[in-house]
């Protein structure tokens, strides 16, 4: 039965709710809109060098927030005093200032500009001009992000910034990514960056609507990060959302729709091939003699073999998915009040049948000027998502591994429980229909702030926020599901409610002053408190007598087992920053932050993270004024330290309550609570039929001395722009040393504890990053840009436990954990296959004397010793990557725009369990289907996989699992067609663009999977093709 269809649904399925949301937005927007006009009006027109009107030019009265945009015909009107200056800004044109004076109208031609250096960049607790940035801060243009056909902001960042490596976390509906900034610093601590949205730490980068992003900055070096102290060691991503503008009302729509599928680069055994594999496997187990088919196959399997009717499970299980993404935003403002509102609806139907994902995100950003010295504002964001998926985490697995022999249906048309008659291959279609998990997630942020500026140059900001996350998971298997059938026709269900609330209060003071001739000083002080509380309630219900009420009938279950958990964590911080420059030539920045966290030992609560930066803007020296070829030249160097308080939550010894959970919840600061003190696991027992409560310490020994992990980075960079900025870019080198690593130290098993979270060791990441932008063609109607990003990061363990037990003068490795001094954190260390033993070969004299022909032959480092020796014969392989890079093309020709991104990641090795695992069909036993390999038989001595055997997995099969996972991918191709400005003006619009985008279209890799970053049982990134429309009024 399809029980979930009978459940009520609360998602925005129909158009009524969509319209309601839109109306709400408009209501919010118009509520605060009132035009005020009390000063003298200045009018005029802005044109380009050819005399064509320029619409959308930002015109601001300097030193105020009073501003407007030029209209479609280039004209504008703004209120200003004669002594004030108007500043005209337009992307790609030179910023120009004009004194109002006595003139009643200002007509202006904006020249072709190279204004990237005047862009404002958001840094921690402030903004600076891009030309004044001396730390390592990378900006990503929002329009380059949203053109990628995905709902995942992490995926949008892939290949956009040197030093930022994005890998797929989960490619399923509502996908997510792992973002690694400048390599892996931590062994057991977290490696996820801190994400801050409008000054509020976000729970997840995807909590916000990508269309709301006004700017996104990635802080890569310690000088930029240190103001975020203990949470910044893995980098910081600063997101600023859009706001309303004075005197301008704009309505924008961006929507697209498309389809998705997967592209695999492997074959599985066909029906005939699988039958033959089965015969070979039984032959090996039968002393080399083929048994009769009748002796090894069931009647159902024989039917397939004799009739030629085989099952194509992939065809039965997978389908084309679809996506829809609609975004409406309204920005409006008056002299004292600005409002930005938006709503995004995202819908996805999964590639797996009966899976879908819906998400709505809404935002209202409000700014209100109360007095000239007092401003208040509020940012609110609301997001709700709902996902339906069958409870088959293994659905992709079963599409590969289920035997193609047998019948899908019983004679009465119902699904057959065991299609081939053997219990190893249950019918995967049953659970796709009979199980479901409904995941509901709600994120909301309320952020109120107050700016108080009693003295010129001085500002005090009170920043208050409350962020909450609420997850509700309803999971149900009917009595007819696989678990139901095995359980005598009884269903089971699981309700899991989790919530997290995080409060932040920040006091931020800043003071800016210019002294004498060109001494510019800026001071910032921050005091901050964050508190986060988490609660969970879960009930697991087994043996439901019927499915009438589905998940809402759990009360009738024979057993209901509750799990209850909760914790609290907090962070107290004080930070300060001083920035000085002399005439934008010489720069000095000092910053520091002190953080205290609840999660560390009582004696080690506080951590201190200072940083220093110096810069020399050579271009602004007088001796450079006549060097026309050089447009920009800046040298900068920084040094400082930041902290890491994190390992992934709920992995500690204290998490007996969570062993049944499959949902991962990411907190912004992420060490699991209670690791510095002793807590006990609940282990109950049954005495005389009566339940008794039991508690016992778990496998982790607590560590009351636990403290911060500290990363210290030296960064050296050269920014350059040549030939009127036609060639520009940055060369950057860095060296980060992370010490006091939060490590799960292995303890001697005889101690009664297996591990202890402790601080020890040191890891180094050093690397080079190159960003190169070229403007090959730069004409009015024709622009062609090519950008190249290159990153090489070398990761190395410098120290571990400081032990030298064999006295050879070299620090000992931790072989059990595969941690080796002088090697990267991620390595493989195992025997290396060098071929297959052949008949007639002198196997008895080899170091594998008991092997048989068809077994895997392993590398023998010391052939004379005659033994397979774990200490000598294993081989170390780096997981990589060696380097990664991106080539981006951008082309604009009249009303056509085109862009393409090609990513490459080289030198990656991954362990592909599908080459070797029994459950993954890799173990050549003729029981489960799998990735097709050229296996050895006496008749096929050239096979590079061992001889199949029904009884057991081949010896040392796991050694074949390492596979090159380097890849090159056409990540994104987009082509757009826009209506010309004149046409738009005539129909009262500011923008109308039709676009087509394809993502993940082609991937070249040797890795046998759907994705080089995922094994075949995990959701890969989908190949997506969309068509979309952007409209502005």
């Amino acid at each position, binding site marked *: 039965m399809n029980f979930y269809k009978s459940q009520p649904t609360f998602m925005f399925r129909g158009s009524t709710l969509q319209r309601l949301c839109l109306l709400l937005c408009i209501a919010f927007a118009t509520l605060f809109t009132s035009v005020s006009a009390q000063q003298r009006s200045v009018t005029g027109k802005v044109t380009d060098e050819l005399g064509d009107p320029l619409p959308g030019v930002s015109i601001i009265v300097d030193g105020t927030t009073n501003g407007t945009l030029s209209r479609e015909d280039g004209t504008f009107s703004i209120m200003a005093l004669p002594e004030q200056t108007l500043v005209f800004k337009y992307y790609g044109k030179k910023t120009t200032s004009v004194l109002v004076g006595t003139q009643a109208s200002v007509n202006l031609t904006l020249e072709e500009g190279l204004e990237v250096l005047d862009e404002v960049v958001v840094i921690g607790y402030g903004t600076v001009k891009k030309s004044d940035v001396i730390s390592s801060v990378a900006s990503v243009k929002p329009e380059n992000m949203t053109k990628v056909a995905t709902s995942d902001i992490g995926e949008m960042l892939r290949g956009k910034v040197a030093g930022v490596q994005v890998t797929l976390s989960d490619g399923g509906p509502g996908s997510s990514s792992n973002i690694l900034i400048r390599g892996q610093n931590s062994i057991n601590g977290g490696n996820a960056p801190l994400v801050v949205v409008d000054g509020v730490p976000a729970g997840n980068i995807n909590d916000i609507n990508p269309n709301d992003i006004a700017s996104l900055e990635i802080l890569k070096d310690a000088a930029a990060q240190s103001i975020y102290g203990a949470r910044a060691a893995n980098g910081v991503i600063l997101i600023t959302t859009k706001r309303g503008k004075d005197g301008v009302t704009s309505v924008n729509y961006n929507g697209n729709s498309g389809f998705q599928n997967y592209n695999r680069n492997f074959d599985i055994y066909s029906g005939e091939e699988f039958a033959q594999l089965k015969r070979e496997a039984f032959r090996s187990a039968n002393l080399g003699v083929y048994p009769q088919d009748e002796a090894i196959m*069931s009647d159902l399997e024989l039917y397939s073999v004799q009739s030629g009717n085989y099952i194509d499970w992939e065809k039965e299980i997978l389908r084309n998915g679809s996506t829809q993404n609609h975004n409406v935003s309204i920005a409006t403002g008056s002299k004292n009040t600005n409002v930005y509102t938006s709503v995004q609806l995202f819908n996805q139907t999964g590639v797996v049948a009966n899976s879908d994902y819906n998400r709505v995100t809404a935002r209202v950003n409000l700014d209100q000027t109360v007095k000239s010295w007092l401003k208040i504002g509020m940012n609110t964001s609301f997001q709700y998502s709902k996902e339906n998926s069958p409870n088959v985490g293994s659905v992709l697995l079963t599409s590969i591994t289920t035997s193609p022999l047998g019948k899908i249906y019983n004679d009465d048309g119902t699904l057959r429980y065991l299609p081939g008659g053997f219990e190893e291959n249950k019918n995967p279609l049953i659970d796709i229909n009979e199980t479901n998990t409904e995941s509901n997630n709600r994120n909301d942020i309320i952020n109120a702030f107050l700016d108080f500026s009693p003295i010129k140059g001085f500002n005090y900001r009170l920043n208050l926020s409350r962020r909450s996350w609420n997850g509700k998971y309803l999971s149900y298997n009917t009595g007819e599901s696989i678990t139901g059938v095995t359980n005598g026709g009884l269903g089971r269900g699981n309700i899991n409610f989790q919530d997290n609330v995080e409060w932040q209060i920040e006091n931020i003071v800043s003071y800016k002053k210019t002294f004498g001739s060109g001494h510019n000083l800026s001071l910032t002080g921050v005091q901050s408190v964050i508190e986060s509380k988490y609660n969970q309630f879960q009930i697991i219900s087994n043996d439901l007598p019927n499915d009438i009420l589905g998940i809402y009938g759990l009360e009738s279950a*024979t057993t209901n087992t509750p799990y209850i958990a909760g914790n609290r964590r907090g962070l107290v911080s004080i930070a300060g920053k001083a920035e000085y420059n002399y005439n934008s030539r010489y720069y000095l920045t000092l910053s520091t932050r002190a953080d205290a966290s609840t999660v560390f030992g009582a004696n080690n609560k506080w951590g201190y993270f200072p940083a220093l930066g110096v810069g020399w803007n050579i271009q602004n020296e007088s001796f450079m004024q006549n060097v026309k070829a050089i447009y920009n030249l800046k040298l900068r160097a920084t040094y400082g330290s930041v902290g890491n308080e994190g390992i992934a939550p709920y992995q500690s010894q204290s998490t007996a309550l969570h062993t049944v959970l499959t949902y991962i919840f990411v907190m912004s600061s992420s060490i699991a609570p209670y690791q510095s003190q*002793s807590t006990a*696991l609940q282990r109950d027992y049954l005495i005389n*039929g009566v339940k008794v409560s039991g508690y016992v310490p778990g496998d982790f020994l607590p560590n009351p001395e636990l403290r911060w992990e500290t990363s210290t980075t030296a960064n050296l960079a050269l920014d350059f722009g040549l030939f009127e900025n036609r060639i520009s870019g940055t060369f950057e080198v860095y060296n980060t040393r992370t010490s006091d690593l939060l490590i799960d130290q292995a303890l001697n098993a005889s*101690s*009664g504890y297996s591990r202890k979270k402790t601080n020890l060791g040191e890891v180094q990441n050093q690397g080079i990053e190159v960003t190169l932008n070229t403007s090959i063609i730069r004409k009015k109607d024709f622009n062609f840009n090519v950008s190249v990003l290159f990153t090489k990061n070398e990761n190395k363990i410098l120290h571990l436990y400081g032990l030298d037990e064999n006295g050879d003068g070299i620090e000992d490795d931790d072989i059990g954990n595969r941690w080796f001094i002088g090697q990267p954190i991620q390595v493989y260390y195992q025997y290396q296959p060098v071929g297959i033993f052949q008949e007639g070969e002198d196997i008895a004299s080899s170091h594998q004397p008991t092997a048989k022909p068809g077994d895997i032959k392993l590398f023998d480092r010391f052939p004379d010793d005659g033994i397979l020796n774990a200490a000598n014969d294993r081989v170390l392989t780096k997981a990589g990557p060696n380097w990664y890079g991106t080539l981006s093309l951008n082309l604009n020709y009249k009303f056509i725009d085109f862009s393409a991104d090609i990513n490459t990641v080289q030198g990656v090795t991954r362990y592909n369990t599908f080459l070797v695992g029994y459950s993954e069909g890799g173990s050549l036993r003729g029981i489960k289907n799998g990735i097709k390999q050229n296996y050895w038989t006496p008749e096929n001595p050239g096979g590079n996989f061992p001889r199949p055997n029904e009884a057991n997995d081949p010896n040392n099969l796991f050694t074949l699992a390492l596979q090159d996972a380097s890849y090159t991918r056409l990540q994104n191709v987009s082509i757009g067609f826009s209506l010309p400005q004149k046409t738009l003006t005539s129909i009262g619009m500011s923008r109308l663009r039709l676009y087509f985008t394809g993502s993940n279209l082609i991937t070249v890799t040797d890795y046998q999977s759907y994705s080089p970053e995922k094994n075949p049982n995990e959701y890969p990134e989908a190949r997506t093709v969309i068509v979309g429309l952007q409209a502005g009024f």
Partner: protein
Amino acid sequence: MKRNILLTLFAFATAFFLSSCTEFLKETPVDQISVDYIYSTGDGLEVGVNALYSLMRTYNIPAFEGTPLAANVFFMVADDLGQTRTWHRPYGPNNHTPTGYPAYKWTEGYKIIDRCNAIIAGSENITDYNETLKNRIVAQARVIRAEIYFDLIRMYDNILIDVTPTTPENINDSITYSVANPADVYALINGDLNFAIENLSYDEPYGRYSKSVARHLRGKSAMWQSDWAEAITQFDAIINESGKALVPIDQVFGQNLNHKEMLFAYTRNELLGGNDALAGGGGTWISSVFVQRLYENSSGDFIQDPEYGGQALAWSTCNEYLRSLYDKVNDKRYTTYYYPELYTANNPASPRFGQVIPLSGYDDNLRRYCFSLKKFHDVTKGALTNDSWKDYPIIPRQI
């Protein structure tokens, strides 16, 4: 301006008041109890001992598949009476190593010993608790410690003695690992069991260690030390004092193990379980491991039926040598503890339904037809699952 400055000062004061941080930074677990509570209070000792039973249940008869089951089956079949078809392969070169399948019995054994040590050491500092109750709790911890040491020395011969609980303070202390003298190990075992014999009664509830259990272990320990007189003393005491008595052979390992012959069994209950951390525990697969998959025979004569063991695994089986040791006609153990050689077709769709299938009617395939063990048979086990919640007998023990 003056007002503005006052406002600023007020805001700062508010902020710092809110962040008075010593209390704020204190971490107090809300959903877990502290280890200190277990080892410094009488009530704590009691929940600590209850948890030891739960750990021991998993140690000796774990739920579901996995390393603990593999380690236990390893010791069950690594002799000349069993054979293994697949999966754990105890004789495989990669498995029969100290870090292979048996490792769990060593590492988990020492873990439970450490938790026993913590209760025994902690009890010495508790003075405000009824002495009799305290000694009863400590006696149980000492039986468990003695039992594990007794198992370890018989499994590994060369073992370590450790009677000091591990703490964050002593984990880094220098330790010299040296093989314990067997006499010292037996002295420790005897001391623990003697204490238990003194402080436990014969009438402990089903599922809890009793004086009978302590005497039984003490007697076995004496036999391993060739102290036959002591063994006789202990066993006689059980026979004469405990009230225990023999039951008919079909009840010894029957469905209800709470009978007069059973000195100790690990208890399970599906209604109070789900996994081994819960009172009722998780479902064990032991009743499926040693049983053929009759229903897979290509003849189609059989379907899964609890009477024939239902869903089964046949990962390991008894061998023909074992079968040859029995008098097949007169030995009731043979007819009670093993499935028969011939079966009645139970598939209604088979033309031979209801007929006894002769030997020629079974596939020559160990997985589908073999000498199968019925000692763990659970009449309540579902036809299509390996999970069984039947109690597990320890004394007397099946394998």
